[in-house]
């Protein structure tokens, strides 16, 4: 920069461009537009069915204003008990299975072959949606909450074991070394150096997973794996919108309570 060639001080300012190349930017915009047109064109809208649906939408809305908790209470109660018990047992079982798998999937604790196996299990549990897993468990053990329990326990591994393993790998190696230097064995190292570091996180994640498991338990019933979802499915199949509204309000209420509770637990331990 030479002082002599100083240009006139710029009086206007332009936002720096997001894309480095103008051609790339317009190609992306054009591509997006073409996609949008094609996608919108392939959505078939059946207007006759839609106008018929308007009446149903109105009934659904009025159902929300006058939810009917009474006439199907027996079914609702059974679905709720199934969902809640399923949530508790599958969360506990999921944690019990996740902890050893997480220890095996932590690079700093496990030999390479165990690491591979455990990471494989985690990947398998994460790939498919709960609903698809539920279809298979229903086909294996029959209809009912037990299939839901298996599904949720399995998905809990994918979530909890992965996050916990990542957390163990990030644990402070100084503490591990200090405990090992006292002559501690493998179990003692895990107990005193690792567990004390990751415990708050494990509790927080478990509370969060409890919350998720309840949400999912409200859905797996649609494919026959027990819980409130089955009751909701039946109510909607019969067009009993007031009962369906009651079920939805209960689900929203419990989800909010779970979320608030798990938030409170996570705040207290952090």
């Amino acid at each position, binding site marked *: 920069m030479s002082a002599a060639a100083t240009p006139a001080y710029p009086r206007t300012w332009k936002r720096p461009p997001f894309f480095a190349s103008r051609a790339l930017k317009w190609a992306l915009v054009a591509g997006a537009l073409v996609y949008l047109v094609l996608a919108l064109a392939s959505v078939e809208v059946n207007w006759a069915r*839609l106008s018929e649906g308007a009446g149903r939408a109105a009934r659904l809305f009025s159902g929300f204003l006058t939810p009917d908790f009474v006439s199907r209470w027996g079914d609702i109660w059974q679905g709720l008990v199934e969902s809640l018990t399923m949530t508790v047992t599958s969360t506990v079982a999921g944690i019990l299975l996740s902890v050893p798998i997480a220890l095996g999937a932590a690079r700093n604790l496990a030999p390479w072959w165990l690491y591979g196996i455990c990471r494989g299990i985690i990947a398998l549990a994460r790939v498919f*949606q709960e609903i698809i897993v539920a279809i298979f468990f229903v086909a294996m053990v029959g209809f009912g909450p037990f299939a839901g329990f298996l599904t949720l326990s399995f998905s809990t591994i994918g979530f909890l074991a992965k996050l916990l393993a990542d957390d163990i790998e990030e644990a402070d190696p100084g503490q591990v070394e200090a405990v090992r230097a006292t002559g501690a064995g493998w179990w003692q190292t895990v107990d005193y150096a690792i567990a004390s570091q990751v415990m708050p996180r494990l509790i927080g994640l478990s509370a969060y997973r409890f919350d998720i498991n309840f949400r999912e338990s409200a859905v797996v019933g649609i494919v026959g794996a027990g819980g409130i979802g089955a009751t*909701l499915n039946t109510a909607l199949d019969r067009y009993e919108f007031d009962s369906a509204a009651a079920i939805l309000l209960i689900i929203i209420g419990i989800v909010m309570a779970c979320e608030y509770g798990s938030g409170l637990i996570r705040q207290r331990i952090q």
Partner: protein
Amino acid sequence: MAVLTDATGGRSWQLRTSRERLVRWFAWLALVALTVFCWRVMTAGTIWAFVTDAPTQAADIFGRMVPPRWDYANRLWWPLWDTINIATLGTMIALVLAVPVAFLAARNTTPSTAFVRPVALFIIVASRSINALIWGLLLVAVLGPGVLAGIIAIALRSIGFIGKLLYEAIEEIDQRQVEAIRATGASGAQVMAWGIVPQILPALATIAVFRWDINIRESTVLGLVGAGGLGLALEASLNTLAWPQVSVILLMILATVLLSEWVTAKVRRAII
């Protein structure tokens, strides 16, 4: 931390006082009791003969699933296109709806913390607490089966997610930049356009891509309740016990999910 003194006057260090240990012991007892109770209630109607039979059943199902019927894949291109459209269009509609909700919910941009903010927060919570499949069930009952119900289900479900993450991002913006723009004499709209929007745009883009990835996964199963896409083909194959077709569909879903994850990773790297 506590120091205990025993009968002979010796002192020893303990992690917790005896009172703390008692409380913890009771908490564990309560947890175990609750789990056992729930287990008994849940399995009351379980037929154990079916459960012990499960490994045989599993082997049978997987035996039927291989070899996959590869030529069936040619009939899946249209459902696949529908699935991608459900996820993409649903995410776009959700973005359009969630941005104003997020601005109304953020403490620093809402017009009224007493009246507007609680309403916006309620919309976010209600949308988040109902799974896309349940939205799908509702919308199929109202609109009839098809892609449209799927798109709206995904959109309604995503509002809460996008809204929540976005309003947290808005609340975390750097106020000094907003003040600097205001100090130049900018109007409310100009403060919005030059002070707030540029700060949250990267967050919005990452949230949108992240949600699109989730929506691809969710839209693959929406068809199970009649809302179009690959799930519809899955339902049809399951109902006719055509297991070789089921395995093709599952592989197709797997490929789609992996592809969406790859796209998401690419886009995120470009943004951050």
